[in-house]
């Protein structure tokens, strides 16, 4: 039991109960009436001490009922609350997870997000239901996913918090918390212009509704003045398996056919046998004849980490038309159906157009040997001049190869950089290294298909300190050697060394690498060959010049009109739901479209069992159940009881009179 305003109740009781008792102890100031004789009246009067100030306290139901009514009113003024989960500081940040794992439907048929929103509504009601005389709480609503979204800043209006909670939509993104805490803290520190000079308000309760599967939980800390209440959503026993990744590659001999491979993961503690299907453009095209057996998840003794069971599968080649939708489906009924499918857009088989800038004879020879549509060569000066004079000129090329050149800036396009200092943001070149050898390689990356770097020797390479969003494909003994990165409107594959400074040109892998790189970059740049992205990602699209608006259609068939300001650097998204999104536009009176595949690719979101406690730094926060957080104000009931007692007192009075 919590008393929000005990002083008010005490004051009321002190101000009313003693006078009431005094009214019964002190004699009433009654109007005087002269009668012939009091002889006959005195026989029924118990007390004739008319001149005394006080009289004996007598049993009176009226007094008892009146005192009871006042006591109830005093209790109501003290505003008792029936719950311990009160926000001490009056400020609360409601953090609601809307990641993919919150879409899991538990036993009651409702998703975790729906349950979280319901509990959050109840919490808001409890916070704002304190009473008439208490300070209104300040509530902020933040939706968690890959990014934190503030849906309602600190507000003392309950309806605003309710509207913000209602506005939370499910996504298929991962969950991050650091962003949300940073955003919430930034709002906490905003000085209130109405309270200039007042001491900074401190202290806030962070209310987190989540299943605990938060990607960056280990980087979160609860700072002094903050308290975290974790409301676990869902069941720890939730089951899930899904398609964690998939790829499509065209067969070299037959560009119309593609090979499809996929990675199936099992996050359950029991092994799994399931069928896996391949669908192309909505039609079932292949089924693995024996299904797959996915081992159980469990602790990896060598790495001392929990790992899901995993198996890789590949399908026989199938014919896919340009822009065809290839989808891998795991035929499994589990609690998280969103990751049981992964869709991709097959790249068209059209040959690429290559522009060589400052290319050596070796590079030029290799390029001309590739199965490409055309190969042009210009000097760096010519490239700079023509691209500056006519930016659309570079749209005529699918891949631009910078061979040993270091231009100061580059317009958005798809580049293969061989040596030289690449001017891309995030690469951070800081010098040169010599005598570099290969240390590790992502052998499954499309760039490294049929590329063997065991014999690679590099005499000189540019030293890079790449940012986190730069993917290192080949790690050298002294830094990255091959990297890939995406920037607005383009993509690049950066080789940190000039092939002429290595023995690579004399190996067969160099030719394969060049072919892979041209195919990789050309596929990523073509209009109908967008890569599968993760939920929450944005997708840059190079649109034909003249396009002024596009329509973005979600997997749920909701259409959003977007105005295009720069067709060469249009970005759509973030695309929060997994599935096939479609970008549509009008070109020459005809409707064109481009599919964009979005799929869950983070294995952490696949583990959907709810955590009953979470650890932030050194602090472990145990989950509280929804019922514990409810706080109900008792004063309306006390007022009703007081009214009932007063009604009873009135009836007693009427009977007496």
């Amino acid at each position: 039991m919590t008393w929000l305003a005990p002083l008010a109740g005490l004051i009321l009781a002190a101000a009313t109960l003693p006078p009431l008792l005094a009214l019964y102890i002190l004699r009433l100031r009654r109007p005087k009436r002269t009668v012939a004789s009091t002889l006959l009246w005195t026989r029924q009067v118990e007390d004739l001490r008319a001149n005394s100030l006080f009289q004996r306290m007598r049993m009176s139901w009226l007094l008892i009922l009146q005192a009871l009514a006042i006591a109830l009113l005093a209790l109501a003024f003290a505003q008792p609350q029936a719950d311990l989960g009160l926000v001490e500081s009056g400020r609360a940040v409601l953090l609601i997870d809307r990641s993919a794992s919150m879409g899991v439907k538990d036993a009651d048929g409702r998703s975790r997000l729906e349950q979280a929103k319901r509990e959050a509504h109840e919490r808001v009601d409890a916070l704002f239901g304190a009473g008439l005389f208490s300070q209104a709480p300040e509530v902020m609503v933040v939706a968690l996913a890959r990014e934190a979204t503030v849906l309602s800043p600190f507000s003392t209006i309950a309806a605003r918090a309710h509207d913000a909670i209602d506005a939370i939509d499910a996504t298929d993104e991962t969950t991050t918390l650091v962003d949300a805490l940073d955003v919430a803290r930034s709002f906490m520190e905003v000085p209130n212009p109405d309270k200039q000079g007042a001491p900074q308000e401190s202290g806030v309760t962070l209310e987190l509704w989540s299943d605990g599967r938060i990607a960056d939980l280990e980087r979160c800390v609860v700072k002094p003045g903050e308290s975290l209440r974790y409301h676990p959503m869902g069941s720890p026993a939730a089951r899930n398996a899904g398609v964690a990744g998939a790829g499509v590659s065209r067969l070299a001999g037959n560009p119309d056919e593609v090979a499809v491979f996929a990675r199936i993961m099992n996050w359950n503690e029991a092994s799994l046998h399931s069928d896996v299907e391949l669908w192309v453009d909505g039609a079932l095209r292949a089924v693995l004849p024996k299904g797959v057996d996915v081992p159980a998840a469990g602790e990896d003794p060598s790495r001392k980490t929990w790992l899901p069971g995993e198996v890789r599968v590949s399908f026989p080649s199938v014919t896919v038309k340009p822009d065809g939708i290839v989808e891998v489906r795991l035929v499994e009924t589990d609690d998280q159906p969103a990751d049981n499918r992964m869709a991709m857009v097959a790249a068209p088989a059209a040959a690429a157009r290559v522009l060589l800038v400052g290319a050596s004879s070796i590079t030029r020879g290799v390029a001309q040997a590739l199965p490409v549509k055309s190969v042009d060569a210009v000097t760096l000066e010519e490239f700079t001049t023509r691209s500056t004079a006519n930016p659309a000129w570079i749209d005529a090329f699918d891949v631009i190869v910078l061979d040993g050149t270091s231009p100061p800036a580059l317009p958005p396009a798809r580049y293969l950089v061989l040596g030289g200092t690449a001017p891309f943001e995030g690469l951070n070149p800081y010098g040169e290294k010599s005598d570099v050898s290969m240390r590790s390689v992502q052998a499954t990356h499309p760039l490294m298909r049929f590329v063997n770097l065991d014999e690679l020797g590099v005499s000189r390479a540019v030293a890079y300190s790449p940012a986190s969003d730069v993917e290192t494909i080949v790690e050298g003994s002294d830094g990255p050697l091959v990297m890939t990165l995406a920037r607005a409107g383009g993509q690049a594959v950066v080789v940190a060394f000039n092939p002429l400074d290595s023995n690579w040109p004399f190996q067969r892998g160099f030719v394969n690498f060049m072919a892979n790189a041209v195919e990789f970059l050309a596929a990523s740049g073509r209009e109908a060959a967008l890569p599968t992205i993760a939920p929450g990602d944005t997708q840059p699209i190079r649109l034909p010049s003249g396009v002024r608006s596009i329509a973005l259609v979600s997997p749920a068939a909701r259409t959003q009109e977007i105005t295009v300001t720069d067709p060469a650097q249009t970005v759509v998204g973030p695309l929060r739901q997994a599935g096939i999104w479609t970008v549509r536009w009008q070109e020459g009176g005809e409707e064109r479209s481009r599919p964009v595949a979005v799929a869950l690719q983070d294995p952490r979101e696949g583990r959907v069992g709810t955590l009953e406690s979470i650890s932030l730094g050194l602090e472990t926060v145990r989950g509280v159940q929804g019922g514990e957080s409810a706080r109900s104000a008792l004063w309306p009931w006390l007022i009703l009881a007081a009214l009932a007692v007063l009604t009873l007192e009135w009836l007693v009075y009427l009977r007496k009179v």
Partner: protein
Amino acid sequence: MSERADAPKTVDQLIDGPLMARLDALDVTSRKIFQGKVQGERRSRRRGQSVEFADFRPYVAGDDLRFVDWNIYGRLDRLFLKLFLEEEDLSLVLAIDCSGSMDWGTPNKFDYARRVAMALGYVGLVNHNRVSAFGFGGDGFHPLTGLRGRRRTRDLGQWLLDRKAVGDAGFDDAMRTIAMGRQGRGVMIVLSDFLFRDGAEKGLRSVAGRGFDVYALQLIAPEERDPGMHGLTGDLRFIDSEDGGEVEMTITSKALEAYGQATVAHATALRDFCVRRGIVHVPVPTTTPVDELLLDYLRKRGLLR
């Protein structure tokens, strides 16, 4: 005590001409035949000197020879005395309660008592009865005795007008004083509300059986009969009109009911006592017109004829 506007200020306001005319035909009667001071118009059980023969008895030495029946002596040669009924006058005593409790009610009990006393006294005077009036109350004991004949009507009226209803009644002392100073026998009429803290029994006992044919006229104001109907409700402080004592009361239906029971018990106790002592108890609501009281009510009770 302030003078009330409706209080009678002249004798004519106590008794008017038409009432006097109607009362002329009445006379006070008694259930007993009394011996008076002078020969009156009533028979007495005492043998006397009237003309109405009563009996004979043998002569004994010392008898008045004037009453010897000489005709019987002539025939029987024996002396017999001739006895006659003696006629006596009636003594009418009016005892008026002049205590504070009488000065209350609408109509006022004291005014009503004075009007009734005036009417009864007038009846007594016009019939040549010996009329005495006694007023007792906080103002003291005021006797008026020796009135006889119609011409003393004004004296009686003025005496009544001079009375004030204040203070305690002193009923016991007043009755004892009246009983000790009585002159002859007669009819005694007590006009009071009988609201005495010490009770009326002792006082009535003083006069009962002492030669008085006592009538106790208990005057009751309408407010006393039904206080609830006369605006008496809520939390009140009652002031006793006689001694100024205060009583705090919350007038509820229960309280009114209890008061009604107390009123009935008080009247019943007075009536029972009167019956035991041969006193005629007559409860008189002050709403009863005086002429109706005398011409109808008291005639039926045998006080007037």
